[in-house]
């Protein structure tokens, strides 16, 4: 710590930190453009100029750029110095030479950093009198709108896209005042993090194209804190609603999880909420052949009551994409012994195993932030870019950690981005990727290893053995893998904080064991190694924590035990199980009750269908891959008869007279019941204040204080301004009235911030007012709490279930699952842009296998696996290991098949039909 003087006032600050960072952390407003809290300084825009004085007798001083000046003991600067103020205003005047005055039609208007900074500097009068320069815009695909005329050349976009997100197809072109940011030619931006350009850009060059289709001013959006449901990482988001439609998703900062960024699947995968396929009314049918008819909710409930009353037994099938509360409500309704996991049988086993590993081994799970700051990483099996994209982003940053030693030795501060990169050049920290095939992270990898799931697991076991000889050793490891395992072991041992990334996507239990062994081995030699497991879905961990039975057990009970009814919660079972098994299951159950938000094949099997709310219309808790329980809040009240699943289930319970009147009437009550029954879930109660929480006696409004049209927007319903909907479940209100945050003086707890806004800071950059320190944790602690806490550090036993070496079979290939960022996930594909980027169905085969099977170029293949036959076009890919074949799973037109599995592959007979299955 050193003492510096800002405008004569002493401040205790970190030595060597840049002055802009310090000023913003101290609450002093200083305008800036090219600096970004996550990307450091480059000193290009010259906007953050302050006056620096030699000593207390120096009155002249000289202008320096705050972002490039490190704090040293006794430093004297002035932010308010007239010359500095004048210069900062003139920078804005220069930027405004060419910036169009199209704020009224600009999507950024009202949340524009350039607008804020213009007001902050006080520039008002334009002296420049000539025509503005103009550019041609590009079509950058379905997510990003490009309007180059608004560009102020801060270089943030290109720095983020190339330097941080690793994209190659976007750059800065030309020079002087015609610098152009874009692609060489029009086309879809390739990076899965391209959506962050919208938030990185300080003005309206890059704007959200999906938002544009139903544009609303920022101040007209009703927002609430939320959590992304499109993968297991649980990135924090801020969805915005207007007039009953979810309009967009923006990043919500969480130091431990996603920081400043989101992936495109999460950012744009919200359109299913507005889908035409939403189930909006309760539906009934007399028998399985009859058509559905929409009914009033009460009639639906009455019918359920009749069904469940007369039946001896009702089973419940939960869902890895429904909230913890909804799953628990179902578990209570049907009883724990009749509650089954809605995940695939394999996922159920794997996640249960993952929970066991997390509970047993003395290592805490790494948060995303810890992955980002680890200095060596081993990825076992996961194609993170497609399964959990933000983990790929974190790994990309992690390779920069170890080489930081080089720049630190040269006394270059970490925030001095260009200099640090220059000193480091292309040197990267160790990152080893053991995957089935190529990934988009390969450019960062020290070495890649492409092999079958078994071989990946064996490599992991070998690494563990190399680190600690007490760990079991795989036999007959080939020499290349052995060499690689030695190399990996050495790098992990040399690291300060190594991380092992693994997960469930290859559906191979032994990979999890191998990853656990590596972490244990490292811990046994005193390395604080961490484990990062990606899981299948947003609440996979939460569901399995409730200890449900497996789906196959549910099928068996239905077959044998005279089950009368099944309640299926937010789950399309046709994505989870073999269609033949499901047909038999539905046939064996007289009454099927389905709660879901989107119409799907399972909903088509229902006898009673209840419209369930999506994440944007409900309160709930999701448990992410590191067991962090995170609360999401209702953004808006759904129209029609849509209700949260736990509300439906509670109503069913009431209708059955199961409940004492008054019990579990509220969300808080439900959570209290849950914690009472399952005490290890206690953190769920602590992650956010209960619904009775008030600040100065007031609720926290979801609508900004500038919200417009309140007295006319509902005029078509009633000209009497209707009372805003009441929210008994949370301390947030559906109105403009309530506690007006004035950060950093007073703001709601971090878990209850509907939108980051501070006076004078309308853009996302207002975050600095909510953080303890710029790019540090939020004031009062980041939202979310871990449920599984690391046990005492004692050595648990190593896993020794080492699989046999992979042996190829004659006439058959091992079909391994591949994933697509857009397409493999169930919900995000309802966004037209994501559907457009979904890859086609295909079977990827190694060229040598193709040769062996006499397969060439354009062939369509017949693939027989698990008593199903598919027709898939052949795609020859050199990175697929011999003896295996890759199949992108989860695509909407593909029926479920449990992978990995051995399949027979033959060219399709010429005369058979050409249609694809499904």
């Amino acid at each position, binding site marked *: 710590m050193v003492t510096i003087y800002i405008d004569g006032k002493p401040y205790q600050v970190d030595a060597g930190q840049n002055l802009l960072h310090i000023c913003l952390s101290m609450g002093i407003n200083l305008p800036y453009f090219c600096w970004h809290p996550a990307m450091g300084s*480059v*000193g*290009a*825009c*010259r*906007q953050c*100029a302050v006056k620096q004085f030699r000593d207390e007798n120096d009155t002249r001083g*000289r*202008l320096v750029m705050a972002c*490039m000046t490190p704090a040293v003991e006794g430093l004297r600067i002035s932010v308010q110095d007239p010359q500095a103020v*004048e*210069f900062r205003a*003139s*920078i804005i005047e*220069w*930027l405004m*030479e*060419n910036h169009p005055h199209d704020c009224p039609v600009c999507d950024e208007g009202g949340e524009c950093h350039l607008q804020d900074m213009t007001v902050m500097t006080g520039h008002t009068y334009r*002296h*420049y*009198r*000539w025509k503005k320069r103009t550019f041609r815009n590009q079509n950058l695909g379905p997510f990003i709108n490009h309007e180059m005329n608004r560009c*102020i*050349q801060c*270089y943030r976009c290109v720095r983020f896209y190339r330097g941080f997100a690793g994209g190659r197809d976007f750059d*800065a072109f*030309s*020079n*002087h*005042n*015609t*610098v152009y940011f874009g692609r060489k030619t029009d086309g879809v931006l390739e990076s899965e993090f391209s959506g962050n350009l919208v938030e990185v850009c300080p003005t309206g060059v890059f704007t959200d194209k999906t938002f544009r289709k139903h544009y609303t001013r920022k101040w007209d959006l009703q927002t609430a804190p939320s959590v992304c449901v499109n993968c297991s990482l649980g990135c924090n988001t801020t969805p915005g609603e207007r007039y009953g439609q979810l309009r967009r998703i923006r990043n919500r900062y969480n130091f431990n999880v996603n920081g400043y960024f989101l992936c495109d699947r999460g950012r744009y995968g919200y359109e299913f909420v507005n889908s035409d396929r939403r189930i909006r009314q309760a539906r009934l049918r007399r028998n399985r052949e009859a058509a559905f008819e929409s009914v009033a909710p009460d009639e639906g409930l009455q019918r359920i009551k009749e069904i469940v009353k007369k039946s001896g037994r009702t089973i419940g099938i939960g869902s890895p994409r429904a909230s913890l509360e909804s799953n628990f409500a179902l578990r209570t309704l049907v009883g724990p012994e009749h509650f089954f996991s809605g995940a695939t049988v394999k996922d159920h086993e794997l996640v249960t195993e993952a929970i066991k590993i997390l509970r047993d081994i003395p290592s805490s799970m790494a948060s995303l932030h810890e992955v980002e700051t680890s200095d060596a990483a081993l990825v076992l099996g996961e194609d993170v870019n497609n399964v959990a994209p933000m983990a790929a982003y974190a790994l990309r940053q992690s390779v920069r950690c170890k080489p930081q030693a*080089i720049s630190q030795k*040269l*006394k*270059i501060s970490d925030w*001095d981005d*260009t*200099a640090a990169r*220059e*000193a*480091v*050049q292309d040197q990267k920290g160790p990152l080893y990727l053991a995957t089935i095939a190529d990934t988009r992270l390969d450019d960062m990898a020290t070495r890649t290893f492409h092999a079958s799931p078994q071989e990946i697991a064996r490599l992991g076991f070998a690494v563990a053995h190399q680190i600690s000889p007490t760990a079991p050793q795989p036999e007959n490891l080939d020499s290349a893998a052995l060499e690689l395992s030695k190399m990996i072991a050495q790098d992990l041992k040399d690291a300060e904080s190594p991380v092992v990334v693994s997960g469930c996507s290859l559906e191979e239990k032994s990979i999890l064991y191998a990853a656990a062994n590596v972490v244990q081995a490292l811990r046994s030699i005193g390395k604080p190694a961490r484990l990062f497991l990606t899981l299948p879905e947003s609440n996979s961990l939460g569901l399995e924590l409730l200890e449900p039975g497996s789906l196959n057990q549910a099928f068996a009970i239905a077959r044998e035990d005279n089950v009368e009814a099944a309640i299926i919660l937010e789950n399309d079972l046709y994505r989870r199980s073999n269609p033949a098994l499901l047909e038999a299951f539905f046939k064996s159950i007289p009454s099927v009750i389905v709660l879901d938000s989107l119409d799907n094949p399972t909903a088509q099997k229902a006898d009673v269908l209840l419209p369930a709310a999506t994440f944007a219309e409900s309160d709930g808790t999701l448990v992410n891959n590191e067991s962090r329980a995170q609360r999401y809040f209702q953004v808006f009240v759904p129209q029609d008869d849509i209700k949260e699943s736990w509300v439906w289930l509670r109503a069913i319970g009431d209708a059955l007279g199961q409940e004492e009147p008054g019990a579990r009437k509220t969300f808080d009550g439900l959570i209290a019941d849950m914690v009472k029954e399952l005490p290890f879930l206690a953190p769920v109660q602590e992650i956010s204040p209960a619904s009775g929480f008030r600040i100065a006696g007031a609720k926290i409004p979801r609508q900004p204080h500038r919200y417009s049209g309140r007295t006319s927007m509902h005029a078509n319903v009633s000209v009497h301004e209707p009372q805003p909907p009441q929210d008994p479940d949370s301390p947030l209100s559906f109105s403009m009235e309530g506690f007006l945050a004035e950060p950093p003086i007073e703001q709601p707890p971090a878990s209850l911030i509907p939108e980051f806004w501070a006076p004078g800071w309308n853009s996302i950059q207002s975050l600095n007012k909510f953080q303890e320190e710029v790019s540090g944790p939020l004031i009062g602690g980041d939202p979310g709490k871990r449920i599984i806490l690391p046990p005492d550090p004692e050595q648990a036993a190593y896993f020794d279930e080492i699989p046999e070496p992979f042996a190829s079979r004659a006439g058959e290939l091992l079909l391994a699952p591949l994933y697509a960022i857009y397409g493999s996930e169930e919900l995000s594909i309802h966004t037209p842009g994501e559907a457009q980027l979904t890859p086609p169905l295909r079977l990827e085969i190694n060229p040598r296998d193709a040769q062996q099977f006499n397969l060439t170029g354009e062939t369509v293949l017949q693939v027989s696996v698990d008593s199903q036959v598919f027709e898939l076009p052949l795609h020859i890919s050199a990175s697929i290991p011999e003896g295996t074949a890759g199949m992108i799973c989860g695509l909407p037109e593909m029926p479920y098949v449990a992978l990995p599995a051995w399949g027979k592959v033959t060219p399709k007979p010429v005369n058979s039909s050409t249609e694809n299955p499904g």
Partner: protein
Amino acid sequence: MNKYILLRHRDIPNLKDLQIYQENGGFAAFRKIVTGLTPDQVMQEVKASGLRGRGGAGFPTGVKWSFLPTNLWPHYVVANADESEPGTFKDREILEENPYQFLEGLAIASYAVQANTSYVYLRGEFDPLAAGLDRCIAAMEAAGLLGDNLFGTSYSLRLHTHLGAGAYVCGEETALLESLEGRRGLPRLRPPFPAVVGLYGKPTVINNVETLTNLPPILENGATWYRTIGTEKSPGPKVFCLSGRVKQPGNYEMPLGTTFRKLIYEYGGGILDDRPIKAIMPAGASSALIPATEAVLDTPMDYEAVAQVGSPLGSASVIILDDTVRMDWLANKTAHFFSHESCGKCTPCREGTYWMAHLTDRIAAGKAEAQDVELLHDVTSQIQGKCFCALGEFSIMAVRSGIELFRADFDARAKRVES
């Protein structure tokens, strides 16, 4: 005794032939130091000679070399042959006619800092010169003057040429390094200095072509001999590029400390049509104007004395302006040059030069009002001292000094406001 030290080809025909160069003592110095002197001794000799960088800043060359940390390897030497300053054409003559002396100098510098790979960065328009240099380098390799284990020692050296893409800013050493590494030529912030984090993140010396061409004579004849030429603080010969309104423009090699008068009236043959001289730009387009008073004309041209009369000596590209030159026209020319050559990185230079170009257009076209001249002056003062690199600083020199010293020229073009 030959007259020239740097422009020796003017004394010796066909000096660009390796054999002729060697017959005239070429590469003796390089052979001598590689076989007989330690790198430190070479550095000491150059320090003792007082040689100062000829690229513009005039920083002592030996001192610059000594900044390279000895615990970070490899080291690189880059010859800056991105001669883009309007009014500068000295390096071109050296590269075209006396290339081996320059390459020998580069080799000597490389040995002094123990660099095994060195680069010649040429401006894009020097394409034919690069081809010529490549032939010279090939000839040197064939003659055993470059390559592994030179002269039987353990020292190895390779030279490479690299062409820029024609951007003025790449003459700025950090932008040059960026360009050499294959990226857009944008300047880097200092610190860290290229001496520590330079080419490919390694310690790097960047010297001007003319600076390097001075090295063979210094190492051959010794620092004491070198000190007999020029002034005490600015020793050695210098190639002055004389252009503008003079009868005989061209390169003139003279000791530093020669007066303007001698350069203009003796070598340059006086002003065209014998008109009165109005002003001097001693460092090309990026220098401030110096009103050509008698006292100025008698100023010796060395780094200190010229700076005292209003502008750095820079690369000694002396542009002569007579009374037919309107300063608003001149300001317009330089503003256009710099607005076109701005790299687009920092705001004051990118937008400010563009604005200056527009304003000077308006003034030169006689459409301006008096307040436009004031505005122009305001714009220059907001640019001054706040840019990322020196290019932004240079861009205002002529405009600002033009307004301050020759205000009448500007006001004469401004529209009278009817009262």
